[in-house]
């Protein structure tokens, strides 16, 4: 079993086994393994932990939750191009506590593989790793099959907190295994294969070039993401886009809407203030 698609299929069919093995190994090596069901729970957990350890973290629970959703998005969100491919660390409290995403977890070794990180350095005192339950791989050598798909740059392996005599590594290591709707997905025969995704990004808009893309882990990307995309409108509020589509097919109405945008612009929208004139206004004036 050396092909990425085979390995991922095998893992999903035996997910409970590999998660139990991972937990046993990592716990034996001094790490702490926690199962949580949502990003909200993760944020609460981290906030409480930081308070107990008297680590001051910037921002509140809401910031942590948003960060966790970025780090470890649901597969559906990821495949719709809503989140980044590679992980990013959020260092908090001046290097005291880091929240990172795992590229992979290795059951046999009780190891966490962090990708896209600078090598070396002492690292944080408290290392928290958030990983979707599907991130697990059976053996260390499987990592070698998947890492090349990720274009990950530097990688770091964590197998537990720092032991006596070791020069670096965190004093405390927490692995948060996040469900976040994944076990529901696993139970859905049509969509289960989405959990094979290792976030290589080959199929994402802006990456693939729209030509035929072969998913390295055997997800039917021609149909599955489309299925997801067509389910989405009910959630995003179909009427808003119907209104938007109505306006965007009527240039005069669109221009009027642009003036309304200027008149009612609010700081909270998160975009810079619109300049006083639109492109088309400036263009018309230039042509006179």
């Amino acid at each position: 079993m050396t092909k990425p698609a085979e390995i991922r299929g095998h893992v999903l069919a035996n997910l409970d086994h590999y998660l139990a093995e991972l937990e046993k190994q990592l716990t034996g090596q001094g790490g702490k393994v926690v199962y949580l069901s949502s990003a909200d729970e993760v944020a609460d957990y981290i906030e409480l932990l930081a308070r107990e350890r008297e680590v001051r973290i910037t921002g509140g629970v809401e910031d942590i939750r948003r960060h966790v959703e970025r780090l470890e998005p649901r597969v559906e969100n990821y495949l719709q191009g809503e989140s980044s491919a590679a992980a990013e660390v959020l260092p908090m409290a001046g290097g005291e506590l880091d929240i990172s995403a795992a590229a992979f977890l290795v059951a046999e070794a009780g190891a966490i593989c962090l990708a896209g990180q600078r090598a070396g350095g002492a690292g944080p005192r408290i290392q928290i790793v958030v990983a979707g339950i599907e991130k697990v791989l059976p053996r260390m050598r499987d990592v070698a099959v998947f890492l090349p798909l990720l274009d990950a740059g530097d990688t770091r392996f964590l197998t537990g907190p720092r032991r006596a005599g070791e020069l670096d590594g965190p004093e405390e290591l927490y692995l948060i295994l996040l469900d976040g709707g994944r076990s529901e997905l696993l139970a859905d025969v049509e969509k289960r294969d989405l959990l094979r995704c290792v976030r290589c990004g080959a199929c994402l808009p802006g990456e693939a070039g729209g030509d035929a893309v072969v998913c390295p882990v055997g997800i039917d990307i021609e149909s599955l993401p489309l299925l997801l995309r067509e389910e989405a409108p009910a959630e995003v509020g179909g009427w808003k886009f119907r209104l938007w589509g109505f306006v965007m097919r009527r240039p005069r109405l669109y221009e009027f809407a642009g003036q309304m945008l200027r008149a009612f612009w609010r700081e909270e929208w998160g975009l810079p203030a619109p300049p006083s004139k639109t492109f088309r206004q400036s263009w018309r004036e230039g042509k006179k």
Partner: protein
Amino acid sequence: MTKRVSLFVTCVVDQLLPRAGLAMADVLKRVGYEVEFRTAQTCCGRPAYEAGCREQARAVGEHFLAAFADAEFVVTPSTSCASMLRKRLPELSGPAAREVAGRVWEFSRFLVEIAKVEDVGARFEHQVVVQEAEGLNCGLRLLGHVKGLEQLPMSDWAGSGDLWGSCEPVSPGLVNRIVGSGASHVVGMETERLLLLRRALQRGSHAIETVHLAEVLASR
């Protein structure tokens, strides 16, 4: 006979970043093109496509196709809108769309591959970092000929999620790395992310400016 290009400035540039559109027109004129702007244009349909509303994305995309049906070259300042029109719209709209969409060019790619110019005679005496974007290669080649411009290295842009248009907030890590690079300007080709980045830099009271590639190429 002068060659003619039609601008598709995108809704974002029309409403929020008109300077980029005007600069793009200037550069295209400078390299010998007659530039037109069709007022029927609005949006490429990408917001709906990304939200999963394929029906509205197709409807707005077809409005685009009608507006530019007879344009020989359509040039746009946004990498992700170019990508929407060239790659996604044909999936939604069929073979007719492929034909029109094939005539859509992202600005930097148009200059390098169609106009076949890399040195547009620009001068921009600043230290910059360049925003990661799809098809960045052409943009980098153009920047390589800008006098006085020094491009500073910045790692890890790709890891920040800042690759193509989306409404995700800019990550604090990316802002920190940009500030750490020592650059005075961020040069970009993906307009939506560039605007969000501008906002994030303003919020953090950083004096770093965000400019579109066209603005750099237009300055002398």
